[in-house]
Structures are given as structure tokens and as C-alpha cells.
């Protein structure tokens, strides 16, 4: 129980740190981007041809853009940490409203990719690990090494071309329901599957060579009994611990894959916002993605706590 509180507390600190770093960078972005902020906001609000100096001044006064930088920064961060993400410069709608639907799309993509990876990776990894040095092990691990070397955008590119050639259909957007989810999820999940296959394989090999496995055999358990009772849990511990690390790659992958497949998620929104120099949207989307990483990390913490009694002490 004490451990649980400590771990969640740690993740909460991480969440606040994330909000701090992202909002600091976005504030710097707002200051350093070329052009007058107030004028740009006024242009977006009233249209390019109808904007006047007076309108820009009104915006400046409204948003407090004439105050000293330090004050603006404190104000900016205070709003971010309290959850007020502001309004999009492009659409004028609150950032949170814009992000809400995209969050669902991103969660679906990340969830599908993770599911796919956890379905494929550990199974192949465990099969390889049960006979270390055997044919399945060597072939499987060579394949895993190759898949880890292929960047996700190359996988995406190949899948895209392949899909176009085979079905005459360009897999972009979410027009075809779960079918259009499959390719981006596969793109995102393959690398993770390859890595988790490797970790699962090593975990199984380590468990099979452990003194406690040898002891279970000496007690008289058959190999199958000993494997079923002593390998899965012990091999799961390093796998889950590694997943925590690879979630950072998953989130990075979300940005790239959503852009490639025009998947209407937060990653796509982030790249769009950068192109449009829409700082509140940049901040909102970057923050959401980073917080998603914190959430995933917290979930792996809990899973580890569940699987490994040593961590409960």
C-alpha cells in the first residue's frame, strides 16, 4: 500500500514536470516565432484584409501581451498547470475541445498497436526462448533484429505502397473504420513486437537457467509442469519493465505514424499546429502526448507491482 502511494506520487511529480517543461518551451516558442503575436492573432480572428492596428492593440491589451516577460511566463504556466489550455489561434475554439476527439483516435491507435505487439512479441519470444540456440530461436531472433532496424516510417511507406498495389486503395484517414486502423497500428506495433519478442525470449531463457527452475525439476516436477509454474511470471517481470522504457518510442511513433497515414489523432494535430504556428494547440497536443506517456508508465508500475512481489516491500 505504501509502495502504491509512493509510485503514484512519483508519477504525479513526473506529470507536473512534463507540464512545466512543455509550457516553458511553448512560451519560448510564442516569444521567438517571427512576427507580432498580437497582429497574428488579430489576423486569424478577423481575416487578413480586415485587420487593423487598432484590432491588434485590442488583442494585445486583452491578452496582456504588453506586460514584462517574466509576468507573462508566470501567468502562462499558471494557466497551463491549472488545466486552462487557451484557445486555438486558427479555429478560435478552446484547445481542449479540439483535442478531445483526437485523443480518442490516438488512444485507439496506440491501444491497437500495443495489443498487436503484445499478441505477437511475447508469444514468438517465448517459443524461441524455450529452446535457446534452436532453429526457432535463431530464425526468430534474426527476424526480430531486422524488424528493430526498420524505422516505423519505412514500414509505413512499404505498407502504403503494398496496399495501393494490391488493393488499389491508399490507406489514409479513418474512412474505412477498423480496416484503416489496421495499417497504422501494424506500422506502430511491429517494432515494439520485435523488441518485446527479444525481451520475452531473454526472460524465458533466464528463467529456464535459474537455480529456482533447476530446483523445481529436482523436486520432481516434469519440464512442462516446471515451465508452466515458474517461467511465465518470472519472464514477465523484465518484459513489463522494458515496456515502460519502450513507451517513449511508442509515443514518438504515434506522431510519425499519424502524420504518414493522416490519422486524425493528437500527433497529427501537433504537426498541423506546428505548421500553422498555433502555439496554444502546439502546447495542448504536446502536453497530452507527454501525459499519455506518464499514464502508460504509471500503468506499467502497477502491473509490475502486481507481478513482482519483491517490489511490494
Amino acid at each position, binding site marked *: 500500500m505504501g509502495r502504491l502511494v509512493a509510485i503514484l506520487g512519483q508519477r504525479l511529480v513526473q506529470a507536473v514536470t512534463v507540464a512545466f517543461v512543455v509550457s516553458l518551451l511553448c512560451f519560448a*516558442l510564442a516569444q521567438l516565432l517571427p512576427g507580432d503575436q498580437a497582429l497574428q492573432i488579430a489576423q486569424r480572428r478577423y481575416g487578413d484584409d480586415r485587420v487593423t492596428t487598432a484590432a491588434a492593440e485590442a488583442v494585445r491589451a486583452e491578452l496582456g501581451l504588453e506586460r514584462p516577460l517574466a509576468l507573462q511566463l508566470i501567468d502562462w504556466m499558471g494557466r497551463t498547470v491549472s488545466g486552462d489550455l487557451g484557445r486555438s489561434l486558427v479555429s478560435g475554439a478552446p484547445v481542449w475541445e479540439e483535442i478531445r476527439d483526437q485523443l480518442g483516435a490516438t488512444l485507439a491507435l496506440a491501444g491497437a498497436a500495443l495489443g498487436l505487439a503484445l499478441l505477437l512479441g511475447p508469444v514468438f519470444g517465448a517459443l524461441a526462448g524455450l529452446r535457446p540456440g534452436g532453429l526457432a530461436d535463431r530464425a526468430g531472433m534474426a527476424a526480430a533484429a531486422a524488424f528493430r532496424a526498420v524505422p516505423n516510417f519505412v514500414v509505413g511507406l512499404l505498407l502504403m505502397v503494398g496496399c495501393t498495389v494490391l488493393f488499389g486503395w491508399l490507406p489514409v484517414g479513418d474512412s474505412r473504420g477498423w480496416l484503416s486502423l489496421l495499417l497504422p497500428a501494424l506500422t506502430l506495433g511491429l517494432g515494439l513486437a520485435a523488441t518485446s519478442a527479444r525481451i520475452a525470449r531473454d526472460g524465458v531463457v533466464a528463467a529456464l537457467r535459474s537455480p529456482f527452475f533447476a530446483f523445481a525439476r529436482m523436486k520432481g516436477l516434469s519440464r512442462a509442469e516446471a515451465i508452466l509454474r515458474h517461467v511465465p511470471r518470472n519472464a514477465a517481470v523484465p518484459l513489463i519493465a522494458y515496456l515502460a522504457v519502450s513507451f517513449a518510442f511508442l509515443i*514518438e511513433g504515434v506522431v510519425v505514424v499519424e502524420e504518414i497515414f493522416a490519422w486524425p489523432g493528437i500527433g497529427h494535430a501537433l504537426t498541423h499546429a*506546428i505548421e500553422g504556428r498555433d502555439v496554444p494547440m502546439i502546447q495542448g497536443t504536446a502536453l497530452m502526448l507527454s501525459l499519455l506517456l506518464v499514464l502508460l508508465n504509471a500503468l506499467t508500475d502497477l502491473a509490475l507491482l502486481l507481478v513482482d512481489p519483491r517490489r511490494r516491500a
Partner: protein
Amino acid sequence: MRRAASLAENGTWWAPWIGGSLVGIVVLAALLGPLVVGADPNRQDLAHVLMGPSREALLGTDQLGRSVLARLVYAARLSLSLGAMAVAAAAIPGIALGLAAAFAGGWTDRLVSSLADAILAVPGLILVLLIAALAPGAFWPLFLGLSLIQWVEWFRMTRAASRSALASPAVEAARLLGFGPWHILYRHVLPDLLPLFGILGAFGLGSAVLSLSALGFIGFGLRPPTPEWGSMMVEMLPYWNEAPLALLMPPLCLLTLILGLQILARR
């Protein structure tokens, strides 16, 4: 059986040679390619677009009639030099701060460690994107962003390995025998760190090159017409039917380099 198992685990004697040659091919292409190929990677020839291999352009031409081979080797030069610079810019402060934190402990350690945690809390590519947004298409924000996310790894690994070396009985015995920090650094700490640096260097170069190409692919890389593998892929994507070779070559180059570096880093 036993031997096979131990080989599978420790890698084989020839693995580093394969990794080395894969990386070597790309490095050689980057160093000598521009001299041998001779063609200007940015010279457009709209009369000869999307051509197959010819004497002038051994791997054909792209949608603007530029030599694909010339663009590939210049892109290799760009990726490797940006990657190497980012790794160097990350390694030097990372190692120095890691050693300082391990040797000094206390507040120095806590301060630098929490700075590293703060940077690590945000996914690396997002951090680079935010910094790159400052000056789209420019070289320095990419370089800055990549070094910024990489020094953390150098710092953390150096700190962890140094701390465990410093906690060893060998260092305690050396201190009792009157040896100073410099002797301990070079006799007990650095020998443990050097193999680690090799792995981190190969891994860091790989991820820097990969990030650069990923950014190029999604349109946040260097300003066109700079030849870069990621942006070359995306430019050629619409012409996959007419010029498949021009589309496949950039990912192939990237794959060769990444696979080689991965084998060298034993990941």
C-alpha cells in the same frame, strides 16, 4: 548444443565485422561518394525526370531530374555529420556531468539528476519537434534538439556505471592505500566506462540519424532541396510506380546504416 546456445547469447566473432562493414559502406559513400559521383545533387533537369539508370545517373533521376545517386551520397554525408555532431555535443557534457555527479554526490548529483529527469519526462521526438518549430527547416534547432535529448542518456549511463565502480571494494582498497581521485578515475572507473561509450555512441548515432529522417519524412526536416533520406522518400512516394528504384534506395541506405549500428551496439 551448449556451444550453439552460448554463441546465440554472446553473439559471434563475425558479428562486429558484419556490423562494421555495413556502417563502413555508408561512411565510405559519405566520404568518397561526392568526389566519385561528381554530379550536383541539386541540379534540376526537367527534360529527364524519373529516368531509369543511365551513364549520367547510375540510379536514375527523381521527379525534378536530379541524380538519385548524387542525392543519396550527399544525404549520407549530411545524416552522418549531423548525427556525429549531435552525439559529440551530447557525449561531452553527458560524460562530464555523469562523472561529476558520481564523484561529488550530494547536491550536485541531485540537481543534475532532476534536470535529466525533467528532460526525460517528455518524449524525445516531441521535444525535438518543439525546438525545431522555432526555425523550421534550419540546421541548428535540429542539432540542438537531438543533442539535448541525447545527453541525458550519456549522463545517466555514465553516472550509474561510475557509481557502481566507485562503490566497489577495489576503489575502497585503492583509497585506503592512498590513491587520489585521478588514479581512481583512470584505473578503476574509465576502463569500465569505455565499452559503454562505444555502445552509447553507436546507439546515439543510429537514433540521431533515424530521428532526422523521421522528421524529414513528416516534413519537419531540413529545408528542401537539401538532400536527405527521409524527405527523399516522401518526395518520391507519389512516383512509386514510375521510379521504384528511386523510392527504395533511401530506405535501403538508412536500413544498412541502422542495422550495422545496431549490430555494433549489440541491441
